[in-house]
Every structure is written in structure tokens, then in C-alpha cells.
């Protein structure tokens, strides 16, 4: 049985995330831990942490109306879990629940769910930096779920052959062996159409072990439009990605292709890093 943390910010209830948790629970029973964060939104949530995590003492003040909103969200969470037969707990000190506590909680959790459309509409924030910032503050993989999305029926593995992307591909398979058996596409982006993923043979040998229904797609310099159209034709996809490294030469290429498509299509994203 997996221990899954569902993070809610500032009293925002996420129907999409709860539906996802319910579907997960149908496949294999989970223990769902409700984490109710008082921060204003995700952007300030993570930046708050970066500024104050070293002190570890600052807890933002909660306005009475926020406390009320959080309580309402908790009530909805509990009602939904009871109705859908999901085992659940609510973090006891939820009014003090800030990022340092969330990090501790994720040390002994299998997955952190974040359900918010705010993620997909962060203005002025680079999506990669944002994902990396989230991962920096968690000790388990993260799944970001848009408000309107179906439970995944297809896996899209983004892969550059490096440690980060391979690690994410392995962790997704360990956590969701039942989803790994679904149709899966390994996507590799490189402007040179003849360029293969570094260590192609080894990558395919590993990925085939976990994802038996595997396809491979190479996106070259003309691939942006193709990828966008191709993703539209994929039924209920989930994107599996490692944290992209800064300073990576092909980073710009990856950003333009994959993260833009994630944002514009509002795709669920699974990310993991060590």
C-alpha cells in the first residue's frame, strides 16, 4: 500500500487531484495524507521556503478567513475520502504546516500529489526552474495534476540518456508497475535527426524491462509542431521527467519542446530526482 501525500495550498480544493487519488486507490489501496498548506500560492510557497528554510522557525501568519478556507477544504477532503473508501489521515498541525514539515513528511512517503492549475499558468517563472524548486524541497517523487485531466492511459517518457531522466523512468515503474504496462512512448529531442539518445542500446534494454508496450519518438529541429499535434492525439497521457540540469547544452531545446507542450496541453507530470 502506498503512502501518498495530497498537498492543498491556501484552502484551494483540487477536484482533479482527488479524482486521481481515487483512481489510484482503485488500482491498489493507498493511504492518503492531507497536507494543508497556508501559503498564498505555489510560487510564493516555494520562494518562501527558499528564503526561510535555513531558519526553520518562520511560519506565515494565517488570516482568519484563510483558516476558515483551510477548514472547509479539510472537510471536503475527508468527505471525499470516506465516500470513495480511501484510507486517509490529516496532518495534525495543519495550521502550522509549512514547507519544512512537508519535506519531513515526504521522507516517508511514496508520492506527493500537487493539484493546481496555478502550476500551468505561472507567469514569468521558468517551468523547469519551478519543478526543480519543488523537488529541492521534497524527498519523494512528485506528480502534478491539472484540474481537468483523466487518469493516465499512456506514458510519455522524456529521456536524454542522462542520470536524471533515467532515474525518473525507473522510479515511475517502481511506484506504478500497473501503469508501466500501458502504451508508452520514449521521447528524445535533439536538433540533429541522426543523433540517437546517448547509450541508446542500454536505455532501450532497461526501459523495455519495465515498459513492455514501448514506442520511440525522436524529435528533431522541426519537431515542435509535430510533438504538439502528436500529444493532442494521445489519450490521457502522463509525462515522466527527471529534473533537467542547468547548463545542459540541449536544455534550451528541451524547454522549447517539452515544457511548452506540458504547459499548453496541461498534462500531468511525474518528476523524480535523487
Amino acid at each position, binding site marked *: 500500500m502506498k503512502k501518498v501525500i495530497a498537498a492543498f495550498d491556501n484552502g484551494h480544493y483540487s477536484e482533479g487531484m482527488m479524482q486521481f487519488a481515487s483512481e489510484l486507490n482503485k488500482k491498489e489501496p493507498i493511504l492518503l495524507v492531507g497536507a494543508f498548506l497556508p501559503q498564498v500560492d505555489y510560487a510564493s510557497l516555494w520562494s518562501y521556503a527558499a528564503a526561510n528554510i535555513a531558519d526553520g522557525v518562520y511560519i506565515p501568519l494565517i488570516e482568519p478567513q484563510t483558516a476558515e478556507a483551510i477548514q472547509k477544504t479539510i472537510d471536503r477532503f475527508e468527505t471525499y475520502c470516506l465516500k470513495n473508501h480511501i484510507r486517509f489521515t490529516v496532518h495534525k498541525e495543519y495550521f502550522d504546516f509549512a514547507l519544512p514539515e512537508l519535506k519531513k513528511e515526504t521522507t516517508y512517503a511514496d508520492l506527493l500529489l500537487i493539484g493546481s492549475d496555478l502550476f500551468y499558468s505561472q507567469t514569468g517563472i521558468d517551468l523547469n526552474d519551478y519543478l526543480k524548486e519543488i523537488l529541492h524541497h521534497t*524527498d519523494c517523487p512528485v506528480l502534478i495534476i491539472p484540474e481537468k485531466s483523466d487518469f493516465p492511459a499512456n506514458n510519455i517518457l522524456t529521456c536524454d540518456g542522462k542520470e536524471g531522466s533515467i532515474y525518473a523512468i525507473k522510479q515511475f515503474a*517502481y511506484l506504478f508497475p500497473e501503469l508501466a504496462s500501458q502504451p508508452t512512448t520514449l521521447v528524445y529531442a535533439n536538433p540533429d535527426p541522426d543523433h540517437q539518445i546517448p547509450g541508446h542500446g*542500454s536505455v532501450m534494454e532497461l526501459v523495455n*524491462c519495465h515498459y513492455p508496450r514501448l514506442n520511440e519518438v525522436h524529435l528533431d529541429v522541426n519537431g515542435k509542431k509535430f510533438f504538439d499535434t502528436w500529444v493532442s492525439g494521445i489519450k490521457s497521457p502522463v509525462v515522466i521527467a527527471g529534473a533537467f540540469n542547468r547548463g545542459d547544452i540541449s536544455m534550451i531545446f528541451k524547454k522549447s519542446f517539452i515544457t511548452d507542450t506540458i504547459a499548453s496541453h496541461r498534462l500531468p507530470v511525474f518528476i523524480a530526482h535523487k
Partner: protein
Amino acid sequence: MQKILIAINGEELNEQALNFACAIARIKGSPLTGIFLENMVENEQLIWKVTGGGNYPEWETDEHSKILEAKAKKINANIEKFRAVCQANQVLCKVHEDKSVPSREVETESRFADLLIVDACMSFKGYTGTPSDFVQQILRHAECPVIVAPESFTAINEIVFLYDGSKNAAYAIKQFTYLFPELYDKRVIVFRISEDGIWQDHERQQMQEWLQQRYSAIGFEVQKGDVKDKIFDYLLKRENNIIVMGSYGRTALSRFFSHSDADFVINAIPRPLFISHA
């Protein structure tokens, strides 16, 4: 199915380690890939190349030398032996031959694997200790969890998680559990050593909550004192277990256990040791 590797010195096949790797592959129902390593760099010689533009030195391997031919013969014989042992253990097998710098080759292979098994004394420079310099390097840099094979092995009836409160230790427990869901019915012991012999309730509860979702028989043991003494006293009395540890991180983040504690376990306690670090 998972991708399980065993690193093998092409010239010296350790049959005990191979039999252990076969036992693990059977638990997982996965094939076993033998990485046959050969240090080709040590066979290179400085040769003067003569060209029209002048002479220059270059490192080259003479593949037709008698030494290399004898080496190749030995490696081929060991590959055959590897196949025969796997077959006798009813394990499907694959062979990868890597000819370059062995530690670098294993590190690269480990990225594309779920689990790597090594023999504690494996070395390409004669005996360099237990664990050998080569194995220490692998433990530090491998990109997948590593099991150091014991000298002799019968069965796994118990899992001992050595826990020091660090992120690395917690990470190792999780990775072991993800890789071996088949061992859910084995007895689990979390052995904690802390400076004051006390285990904070909240931390313990969090771990217990997680473990209870995965295992049915869980025990907790907390002790204070010298890490090596306590580990030795506790583990030597117990049999047929696998030890799980999270030290050997690439950064010195581990709170209590150190590389030398892991080396001590490998050297003094004849049990399989699973190491994975965040």
C-alpha cells in the same frame, strides 16, 4: 522484470558471488546480466608511430600479443562458466563485455540497471582489501543500488535496516522495498543507533506508518554506543538476513554511519549488504 547486473572480473569469476546473484535473480524472476570487465588500459604500451611528417608516441594495445591472447582465452572460459552456472540455477542470462577502465564501465552500466551485484574483494590490482578499492569506488559512484555479495549464502528470512536518522538511510529503505516487494512476508528489523539511545517518537511513527503499508512483521531496536561494536554484536547473532544501509553517499551528509561503518559490515559480517544513497 528488472535489469540485474553482476560485475565480474573477466579473468577471475567468483562462483559464490555468482550463485548469490542467481538467487537474487530467481527471487525477482529476472534475467541476470554478467558485466565481464577487462582493464584494457593496463595492457596499453607506448609505441612510436612513424609517419611521413615525423615520429610520435601513441598508447596502443597489441591484440595479438601472447599475454592478451591468454587473457582472452581465460575470459571466454569464464563466460562459458557464467552461462553454465546461470543455467544450473535456472536463470536466464546475458553477457556484456566491457573493455576499458572497469570502474567507469560499471558506473555507466549501473545507470541503465535496477540493481548491481558485486563481490566484495573484486579488484584489478591484486588484493586491495575487503571491500577492495574498486568496490569502494563502485559503492560511491554507482547510479543504481548495489548489493555486496556474501562469501556464503543460504536464504533471506530477515531484513535488517540500519538506520541513523539520515535522509540516505531512509532513501535506502525505500529503494530496497521498491525493488523487493517479493520479500513483504519477511521479518523486518529497524536497527537504530543514536548518540543518546533515544528514538524520537514522531520520527519513529512516520517510519513505522510507512513500513506497515509494506511489511507484516516489523521490530524496532535502538541502542547507543560505538557504532561498529553495536552493529557487530547485534548482527553476528542473527542469521539468514540481508542488511540495508544508506551510507556511502557522494556527499558527507550521513549523520551517524560513515563509509568506514559500511566497510566494517562488509568485512566483518558475512551477509549480503544492500547499499543505496540519495
